[in-house]
């Protein structure tokens, strides 16, 4: 091949690629900002089920009015703003042709058209189709099977036939539904923060069983309850409830926290060598015990003396798990009675935080030294590695240890570590525009996915702790302002999506979900750690601003 031939070949290739790219962009893009001119989808929802749907070109206020006269019925109007065709009839392309939480899908077949609006897709839980490939879990766009199933049912055909011969369009809507809430940074007032904390704490108290355990994960759109359970998360929820009870002087929350604490103390405590530990089965992790210490210490602060001895015993267990370099052995074999020197994310930070808190109860210098040593280990960074020991992930406990220890054992290296980590988080925050308004302030997990609430919330717990120390340590006003702005934007994101009351038309039992924080705009499940982290961060901020 001569140079001339090569250049000619590359020029042709680039030209074809350019034309194809422009054509694809032109065909698939939709304009979400233009004034809506499309038809109206009017839906009548009752107890979380869509009872009726009509599509009208104008006068939506007169459509399906009679159906809404019954109590508990909601009428939702969505108007199509713009639409674009789906390229081809492939499962793969259809799956990736919708923006999660924002787009609907219409299918036309033999002269009839059926619509799956964003509400329908949320109700179907069809916005994310998870594909497990060995240890990797991939999100392969929407769940095409579910969506084709409902559209083909409405059009009186089979899903495969519809995929082959139907005409598909994606569309954007504006909805009169009240979810997500219109909530900006300016709306993050102390009253709003306190109210949100109370609602989240009441969600947990409402969903507590008689034995003190919680309904672990509620699905807002089905009303279903998960059978799973997790002790670190139970302990974390207990810790938050106890804090909320103490700080907001709410006896009902305090009682719920005592019940949850007693559940761990009486039903989930085992013997790990000479000390007690929390967990089930032949192997326990230190996370459950660490978070139990945090919860017990908070319950003690509320005057529940029965938690003093377990606090001290669990703290001794945590100390016994610490290695000479400050790291912890994260597991203990109950069946063989020995520590297991394996590490996972979170547990080292949780153990350090627990020991710091335990020292306030025990007055034991060994607890303080263990916490200080662990913090120093956690923030030590190699000059040859960009990240940190637990990388720049979601390890949010370290900076809470920093704040808790600051008055007793200030660590400027840890403060710099936390300021740096928050700078990284600022880079990961969605900013609107160009991001959708409702995502502003959320932590991104990729440009093509809806942000999750809990990664934002847990980073916020650390951010507020960092702000507290930054103010005390005299960090520059510019840096503090950056932190405050970042925190308020993230809170606005969380409050937008809190179930206050949430998309009640999609819920069979909205009262049960009130106050909960969902997983994401398209994952309307509430697991016990979602309100714990979100409202835990809000409560920390409320406490800080009260000082």
């Amino acid at each position: 091949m001569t140079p001339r031939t090569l250049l000619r070949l590359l020029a042709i290739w680039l030209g074809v690629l350019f034309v194809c790219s422009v054509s694809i962009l032109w065909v698939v893009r939709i304009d979400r900002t233009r004034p809506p001119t499309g038809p109206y989808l009017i839906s009548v929802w009752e107890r979380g089920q869509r009872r009726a749907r009509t599509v009208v070109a104008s006068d939506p206020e007169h459509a399906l009015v009679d159906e809404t006269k019954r109590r508990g019925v909601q009428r939702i109007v969505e108007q199509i703003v713009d639409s674009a065709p789906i390229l081809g009839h492939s499962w793969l392309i259809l799956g990736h042709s919708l923006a999660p939480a924002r787009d609907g899908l219409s299918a036309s077949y033999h002269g009839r058209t059926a619509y799956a609006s964003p509400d329908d897709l949320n109700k179907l839980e069809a916005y994310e189709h998870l594909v497990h490939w060995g240890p990797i879990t991939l999100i392969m766009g929407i769940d095409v099977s579910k969506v084709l199933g409902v559209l083909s049912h409405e059009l009186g055909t089979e899903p495969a036939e519809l995929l082959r011969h139907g005409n598909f369009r994606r569309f954007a809507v504006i909805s009169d539904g009240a979810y997500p809430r219109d909530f900006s940074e300016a709306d993050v007032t102390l009253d709003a923060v306190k109210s949100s904390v109370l609602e989240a704490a009441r969600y947990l108290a409402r969903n507590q069983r008689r034995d003190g355990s919680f309904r672990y994960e509620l699905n807002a759109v089905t009303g279903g309850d998960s059978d799973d359970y997790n002790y670190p998360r139970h302990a974390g929820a207990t810790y938050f409830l106890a804090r909320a009870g103490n700080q907001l002087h709410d006896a009902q929350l305090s009682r719920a926290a005592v019940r949850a604490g007693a559940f761990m103390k009486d039903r989930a405590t085992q013997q790990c060598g000479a000390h007690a530990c929390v967990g089930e089965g032949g192997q326990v992790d230190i996370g459950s015990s660490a978070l139990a210490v945090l919860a017990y210490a908070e319950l003690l602060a509320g005057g529940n003396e029965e938690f003093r001895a377990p606090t001290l015993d669990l703290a001794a267990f945590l100390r016994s798990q610490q290695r000479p370099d400050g790291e912890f052995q994260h597991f203990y074999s109950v069946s063989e009675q020995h520590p297991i020197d394996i590490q996972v994310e979170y547990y080292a930070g949780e153990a350090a935080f627990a020991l710091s808190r335990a020292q306030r109860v025990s007055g034991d210098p060994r607890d303080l030294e263990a916490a200080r040593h662990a913090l120093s280990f956690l923030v030590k960074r190699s000059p040859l590695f960009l990240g940190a020991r637990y990388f720049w992930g979601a390890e949010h406990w370290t900076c809470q240890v920093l704040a808790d220890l600051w008055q007793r054992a200030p660590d400027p290296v840890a403060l710099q570590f936390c300021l740096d980590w928050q700078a990284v988080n600022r880079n990961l925050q969605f900013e609107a525009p160009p991001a959708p308004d409702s995502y502003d302030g959320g932590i991104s997990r990729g440009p093509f996915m809806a942000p999750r609430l809990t990664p934002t919330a847990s980073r916020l717990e650390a951010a507020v702790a960092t702000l507290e120390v930054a103010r005390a340590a005299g960090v520059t006003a510019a840096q503090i302002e950056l932190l405050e702005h970042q925190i308020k934007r993230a809170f606005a994101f969380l409050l937008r999506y809190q179930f206050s009351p949430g998309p009640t038309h999609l819920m069979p039992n909205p009262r049960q979900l009130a106050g909960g924080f969902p997983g994401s705009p398209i994952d309307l499940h509430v697991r016990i750690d979602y309100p714990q982290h979100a409202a835990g961060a809000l409560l920390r901020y409320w406490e800080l601003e009260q000082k």
Partner: protein
Amino acid sequence: MRVTFGVLNGLSALVLLVGLLGVVQPRFWALDVPLSLIALCLLVSAVGLLAKLPWALRALAVAAWVSFVLGLLVISLIVLTIVFLRGIHGDYGVAALAVSGLIVALLVPYTVVLPALELLWLKRQRAESRP
């Protein structure tokens, strides 16, 4: 140049094989078959070039054309995917664009530049060997 291309093709084959067999888990035929074929072509041409075997230039031509065509195809697919997702999701800022651009930029030297240089060199070799 013979030795340089031999070493570069050998390294490329090694990177592909280690990446395919050591990093990508579990096995997936749609990746395994084409990547193994490319790696095999590169490896055979590398052995031929370094050992100065009589069929070395022919093997290099096959390896270079296979890499060049598949390289352009892979880059085209990546670019069209980026454009498609940009059309679907709208403007999400420069970060996504930067990451996508980086992926393409990392691939171009191995999938386009190296095989193109090899093809140009082969042309010159053939011209020089003519009486």
